[in-house]
């Protein structure tokens, strides 16, 4: 029997391409302070801290020493660092869940951050690839994602226009999210389509930006959560799925890890028809093409129907299952925080605090993390504890 676990406090910075005004701990502190104030908690109330980013991106190992104590109240407390690539934020979210659900702690602080313009994201990502077989040819962020887009398009006849439509949807959603990095209320399909091809078939605006910022969440068990807020966002399921060793072991379309993880999560959370049973989804789409493919892999539609799902308006803000009301990863990508922002947004939607981007009457939300090694983490959150 696991303890019920909820998100009870949320903080995030305004994400930007560069934060030259603050160093790393100063930047993270903004999100941590906001989460503590949001939950009306003092540093002493926090039992443990889980913090994460990717060391290579800023060239700082042992970043938990810099950040878990100066930027988060970790002095004399357990501080653990998590770094799993693109999934860092969702791995953080899941580790936080385990810390509460297991009964070890009552309240934990979960922090993800990245300051991507201090180093080189692609350089960091390359180190995740096999030095002999993959680094000379396929390594990095863009190459594999472009290959996936091309294979997906060839398999199902998805068009560049359909992909461009995802960017238009997400970046116009971002215009309603004061924390999003790229807010483009007037973006058009032509604007996306006329941007430079950077790795065929990916155009510049098919790709996520590099962002700087941090996200902090406070989790509590059932007893504590009710003291803190009237609207906790409860975890119903957390799942992780791994698949391959070399990139080419994966099909590179249909993202099998998303299918495996989501099926398990749906079963655990009692979700039979994701389109009907979920009210909102925050997914980790590093490119416009990946959102179309991931919506299929997550079971929102059949394989090959991601473009149709979008064309029918189902994933729009007014649709049956809005996808990425926050603007998604195409609008904001501070890697170590990116997947945690998905969880934050799922919680915001459940707490009915989304302002202009609020989806009406959210009872169940999905949050997804995706990483460079093509693995997926899926979480389902709800407005009531799962009984």
């Amino acid at each position, binding site marked *: 029997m696991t303890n019920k676990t909820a998100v009870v406090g949320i903080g995030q910075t305004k994400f930007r391409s560069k*934060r*030259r*005004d*603050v*160093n*790393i*701990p*100063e930047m993270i*502190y903004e999100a941590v302070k906001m989460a503590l104030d949001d939950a009306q908690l003092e*540093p002493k109330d926090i039992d443990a801290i889980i913090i994460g980013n990717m060391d*290579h991106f*800023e*060239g700082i190992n042992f970043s938990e020493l810099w950040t878990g*104590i*100066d*930027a988060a*109240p*970790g*002095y004399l407390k357990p501080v653990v660092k998590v770094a799993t690539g693109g999934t860092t934020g969702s791995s953080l979210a899941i580790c936080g869940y385990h810390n509460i659900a297991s009964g070890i702690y009552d309240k934990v602080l979960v922090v993800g951050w990245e*300051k991507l*313009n*201090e*180093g*080189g994201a692609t*350089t*960091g990502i*390359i*180190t995740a690839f096999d*030095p*002999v077989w993959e*680094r000379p040819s396929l390594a990095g962020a863009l190459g594999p994602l472009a290959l996936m887009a091309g294979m997906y398009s060839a398999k199902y006849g998805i068009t560049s226009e359909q992909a461009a439509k995802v960017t238009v949807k997400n970046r116009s959603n971002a215009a309603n999210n004061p924390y999003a990095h790229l807010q483009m209320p007037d973006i058009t399909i032509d604007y996306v389509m006329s941007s430079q091809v950077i790795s065929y078939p990916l155009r510049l605006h098919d790709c996520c930006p590099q962002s700087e910022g941090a996200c902090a969440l406070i989790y509590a068990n059932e007893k504590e959560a009710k003291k803190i807020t009237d609207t906790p966002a409860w975890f119903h399921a957390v799942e992780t799925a791994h698949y391959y060793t070399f990139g080419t072991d994966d099909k590179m379309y249909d993202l099998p890890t998303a299918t495996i993880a989501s099926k398990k999560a749906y079963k655990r959370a009692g979700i039979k028809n994701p389109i009907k049973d979920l009210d909102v989804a925050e997914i980790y789409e590093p490119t416009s093409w990946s959102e179309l493919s991931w919506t299929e892999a997550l079971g929102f539609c059949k394989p090959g129907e991601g473009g149709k799902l979008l064309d029918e308006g189902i994933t729009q803000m007014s649709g049956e299952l809005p996808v990425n009301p926050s603007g998604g990863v195409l609008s904001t990508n501070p890697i170590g925080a990116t997947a945690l922002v998905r969880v934050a947004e799922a919680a915001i939607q459940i707490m009915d605090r989304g302002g202009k981007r609020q989806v009406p009457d959210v009872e169940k939300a999905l949050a997804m993390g995706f990483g460079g090694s093509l693995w997926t983490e899926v979480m389902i959150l709800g407005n009531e504890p799962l009984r």
Partner: protein
Amino acid sequence: MTDEIEKKVYRGRIKVPYKHTAGAYVEKFITEIGKNNKIFGVKCPKCGEISVPPKMICFKCFEKMEEWVELGNQGTITGFTVVTHSTPVMPLEPPFAYARIKLDGADTDFVHIINEGDPAKLEIGAKVEAVFKEKPRKRILDIEYFKLI
């Protein structure tokens, strides 16, 4: 195949030009040492401790520190080692000392270098004074070194 297969090693080389943002506290400290040859710390509003190097949060109290305190340019050695080997990245020609220094009025120690390479002349508890670079370059070595007084 009877020939022994060569056991090859793949050499990797990754070059990353990192840009570490200084932040307002580092900026103020570096500006003061370079422009005015003054060393500043920050005071915690809760415990009252003065930190050098300055930083935004008192990690013991988790309080934001905003009161800047001028400290004077002298302090006391609390630990040292003498560098005798030369490498291309040395701040001074060896021999010289790396030391922890408690600046007068500060509650934390500060890491810097001392232009003395004779262990017999250095001791914990000895007084030192900052010597500033004539042409500052906006870095911590704008305090060129500390000298024994």
